[in-house]
């Protein structure tokens, strides 16, 4: 927001304020001077005024702050007297507030007999200095008042306002009727709805209340009679109207944040004086000042400030005298409460709509005392409890995946609808779309972080980085039973070669690298080994895709080779992708007993089994396990072979069975006995042979 130093100085009697010092002091009390143009008195600041301080969005209000910050006097010269003559204004126009809850006050004055022309040079220069283009004397007068004291005004051509039954041009503040139309000053025709507040004449809307006037009733070169509007609107009403029409004006900016209901008359007088000075004409006696019947009376709020509370909140002592002088300088009316020690009664000025309670007064005092005065202390010692289990687990998963040689990625949470669609069957629910997205590819919350990883992989492949192991621990989204479900998962992607060395042929990442990541993750987290069950998902290659089953058959996600058509779209060949549901990974108990390793070495036997290709490893393993005594520890696959020497449709699997006991050495005979039992069980499988066993 542009603010002129010389304009500010008009409220600061005495020598011209130093531009640099003023900027620094304004910043220190919360009006951040972000930029500065010009030099000396011609300095113009760019000030950031926060949404809670509409009173600082004009020169008088900001000058009041500057006076406190600089320790100088603030003086408002006021509007000055304006001569009135002729018929009373009330005979020349009528004002009615229909929407009394949305318009608290509507004040108007009438000027007749003006000659349109430019504003005086001083006013034009002021407006130009803050980047506002001069238009005509009446319009410039209203703009000047807005930037001077923060009261937005509007000037109507009185002759363009339709008259009511009594023959007077009439202003009605009301809600629009559905379908009513208004061409605003920017020459856009707007179709209004019944939640928009308008200023109407006896027949039709003539302005969007607090936002912008209508073109038809605007003053023009031929205007001789003016009705000046100076109102106080409900901030929400102006905001809704402006938002609905996609508009933002200097006026709406202030009304939305809250204007001072007591300034309407001051604003009218200041503008009227300027218009009459520049354009001649006569200001008609009196103000048409309508106050809504449902509006609260503009009684000043009174708050109590407890000095002890102030000191306790700040953690430092501020003397009551200091509090009194700061509040006074800011325009508050503070008084020591009679009979109660340590309490100051504070009357809040009408323009400080942000000050509602004691804590607001505390802020006023500390920002003027200066934050650099605040000591540095520590709260009392606190013994923390356990952090959220979900956060701890997520970080453990990240560490484990890094240990497995994967690199962590982070992606946008949204993807395009089309990118997301294939994965919806495996996601937490129906796709969640953004109502107001940045466009594609950001319209839909992802059903799996895999989508983002594919994007990352493509980015790298296009930069000749084709050997990739990426993971992301993040949330996926889906509509489920009328709610948006958030699933926490660890997704990963493997592409290209997993590890390559000049000494051996490189190997492309394949399905088992994928299940290996999952198994490694479970092992690293101390969870029982997961199982993999063949599954058919349209987005995964048929026959190279599996569901992940945690202990007890709990579904824990999926893993597989991405279907070729999808992979091609991402510039990838056979990437392996997976998504592990973190909630489904069994959590090790906080306290577990550790089994002491046996002192006895145990022993292992090998079996070579020739069987139909269709018999899954899991069946071989389970068959052997079922025959095993308690001493059977593990069944592992050593080797699998198909080719010359093995009939077509068959494979030869070499497996080893490990036995051991915590209590004793095992004899050769008992181990051989177990081996034979395992072999016989395997022989019972259809079309299966075991080497060396008949």
């Amino acid at each position, binding site marked *: 927001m542009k603010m002129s130093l010389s304009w500010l100085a008009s409220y600061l009697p005495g020598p011209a304020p130093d531009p640099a010092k003023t900027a620094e002091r304004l910043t220190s009390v919360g009006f951040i001077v972000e930029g500065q143009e010009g030099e000396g008195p011609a300095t113009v600041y760019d000030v950031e005024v*926060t*949404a809670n*301080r509409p009173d600082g969005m004009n020169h008088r209000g900001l000058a009041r702050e500057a006076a406190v910050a600089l320790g100088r006097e603030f003086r408002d010269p006021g509007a000055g007297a304006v001569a009135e003559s002729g018929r009373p204004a009330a005979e020349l126009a009528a004002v009615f507030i229909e929407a009394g809850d949305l318009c608290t006050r509507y004040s108007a004055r009438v000027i007749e007999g003006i000659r349109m022309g430019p504003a005086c040079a001083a006013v034009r220069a002021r407006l130009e200095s803050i980047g506002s283009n001069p238009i005509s004397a009446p319009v410039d007068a209203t703009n000047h008042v807005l930037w001077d004291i923060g009261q937005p005004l509007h000037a109507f051509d009185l002759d363009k306002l339709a008259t009511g039954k009594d023959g007077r041009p009439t202003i009605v503040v009301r809600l629009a009727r559905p379908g009513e139309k208004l061409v605003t000053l920017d020459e856009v025709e707007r179709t209004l709805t019944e939640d928009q507040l308008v200023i109407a004449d006896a027949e039709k809307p003539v302005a969007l209340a607090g936002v912008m006037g209508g073109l038809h009733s605007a003053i023009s070169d031929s205007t001789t009679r003016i009705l000046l509007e100076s109102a106080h609107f409900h*901030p*929400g009403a102006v905001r809704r109207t402006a938002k609905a029409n996609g508009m933002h004006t200097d006026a709406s900016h202030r009304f*939305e944040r809250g204007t001072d209901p007591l300034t309407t008359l001051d604003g009218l007088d200041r503008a009227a004086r300027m218009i009459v000075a520049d354009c001649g004409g006569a200001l008609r006696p009196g103000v048409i000042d309508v106050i809504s019947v449902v509006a609260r009376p503009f009684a000043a709020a009174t708050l109590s400030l407890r000095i002890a509370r102030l000191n*306790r*909140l*700040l953690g*430092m002592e501020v003397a009551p005298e200091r509090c009194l002088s700061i509040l006074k300088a800011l325009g508050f009316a503070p008084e020591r409460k009679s009979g109660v020690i340590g309490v100051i009664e504070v009357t809040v000025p009408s323009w400080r709509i942000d000050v509602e*309670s004691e*804590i*607001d007064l*505390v*802020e006023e005092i*500390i*920002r003027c005392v200066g*934050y650099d005065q*605040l*000591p*540095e*202390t*520590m*709260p*009392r010692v*606190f*013994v*923390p409890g*356990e*952090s*959220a289990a979900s*956060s701890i687990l997520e*970080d453990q998963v*990240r560490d484990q995946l*890094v240990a*497995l040689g994967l*690199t*962590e990625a*982070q*992606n*946008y*949470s*949204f993807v395009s609808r089309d990118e997301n669609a294939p994965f919806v069957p495996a996601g937490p629910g129906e796709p969640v779309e*953004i*109502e*107001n997205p940045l466009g594609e590819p*950001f319209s839909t919350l992802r059903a799996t972080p895999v989508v983002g990883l594919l994007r*990352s992989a493509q*980015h*790298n492949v296009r930069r000749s*980085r084709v050997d990739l*192991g990426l993971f992301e621990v993040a*949330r996926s*989204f889906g*509509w489920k039973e009328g709610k*948006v479900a*958030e699933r926490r998962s660890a997704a990963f992607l493997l592409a290209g070669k*997993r*590890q390559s060395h000049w*000494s051996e042929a490189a190997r492309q990442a394949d399905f088992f690298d994928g299940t290996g990541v999952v198994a490694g993750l479970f092992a690293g987290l101390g969870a029982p080994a997961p199982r993999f069950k063949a599954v058919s998902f349209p987005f995964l290659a048929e026959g190279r895709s599996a569901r992940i089953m945690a202990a007890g058959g709990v579904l824990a996600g999926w893993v597989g080779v991405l279907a070729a058509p999808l992979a091609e779209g991402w510039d990838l060949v056979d990437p392996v992708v997976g998504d592990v549901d973190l909630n489904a990974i069994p959590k090790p108990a906080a306290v577990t007993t550790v089994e002491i390793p046996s002192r006895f070495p145990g022993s292992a036997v090998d079996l070579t089994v020739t069987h139909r290709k269709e018999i899954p490893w899991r069946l071989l393993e389970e068959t052997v396990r079922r025959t095993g005594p308690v001493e059977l520890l593990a069944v592992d696959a050593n080797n699998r072979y198909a080719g010359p020497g093995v009939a077509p449709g068959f494979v030869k699997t070499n497996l080893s069975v490990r036995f051991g006991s915590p209590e004793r050495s095992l004899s050769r005979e008992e181990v051989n006995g177990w081996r034979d039992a395992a072999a016989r069980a395997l022989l019972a499988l259809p079309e299966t042979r075991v080497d060396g066993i008949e």
Partner: protein
Amino acid sequence: MAEIREAIEVAVKALSGKLEIAEAKAKAAPLSRGELNELKVICIGQNQSHLSFMLQQLRIASKSEKPALGALINEAKKSAERRISALEGQMARYEAERAEGARAVDVTLPPRTPVVGRLHPLTVVRRRIEASFRSLGYEVADGPEVESDWYNFESLNFPPDHPARDAVDTFFVKGGGTGRDRLLLRTHTSPVQMRTMLSKKPPIRTLCPGRVFRKDDIDPRHLPVFNQVEGLAVDEGITFADLRGTLAAFARTFFGDRAKVRFGPTFFPFVEPGVDVAVSCVLCNQKGCRVCSGSGWIEIMGAGMVHPKVLANGGIDSERYTGFAFGMGVDRIALLLHGLPDLRLLLENDVRFLDRVWSS
């Protein structure tokens, strides 16, 4: 005649001792051929060896003692020969290995490095922030990313239709309801603070890290998705000065012992007073540089005393308890720490970037 037996026994011991020393030495590195020859001469050589001395003694021994002493000497000789031969064998194997060369490799060839994974820079920075506050007694909390209007705005003193909402451009969920239940992507992690207050009694020290969303167009300084760490402390007697002390302590652990913090007034609806927090620029020691735009200060977070209305919405008696809250952007701090020109680098996942820059 007992002197002769004694002399021989001493010589046997000396011989064995000599070999023991050589064997001990050979454990560290095989003996050289010269060392071995010398050893052989001293132990079992023709002249002036331990063995030749024993044989001399044997010659002057009485007839009756000769067989026993002879056996003793023979035993010692065989043992010495066996031990020397073992040392020779070791030396020979060592020499053969050196001479062979067949198993030698070009050690300068690239190693078989296992694939090394890395954490994302944002994770590394977030963990550093978390560690600083954990050491001050904060526990980490967690909450949903899709939130309701009430948790994200209204409970935090952003009334409906209030311009304070203009500062936070919000993504809404299509079909996500209306009013206070309307679903949106959280614009800050403050809803987690509200959830914490509603589920816990003071004293509270909570850290809320997480992803947040703002409808910003993507450019070098803005992303529509970024990461925050927010903190909340609620207790009896918590002061604004405690906030300053806490953030100063954080700045020192995070940016180095000399870091200082500066508060400047600003407005956030959920705190009062609200402040912008700047840390003294550690890159230029406050002399002014590109990173701090010459000011010597870098704004890294917002903070303030929790607004009494927010405490009340969280079910906390604001007369009895006070609290402070703070929040910072992890992405911006990562940018700062690593001198990165563009936030977008953080979400591109270019492995050249991820591999090169980061070590945790």
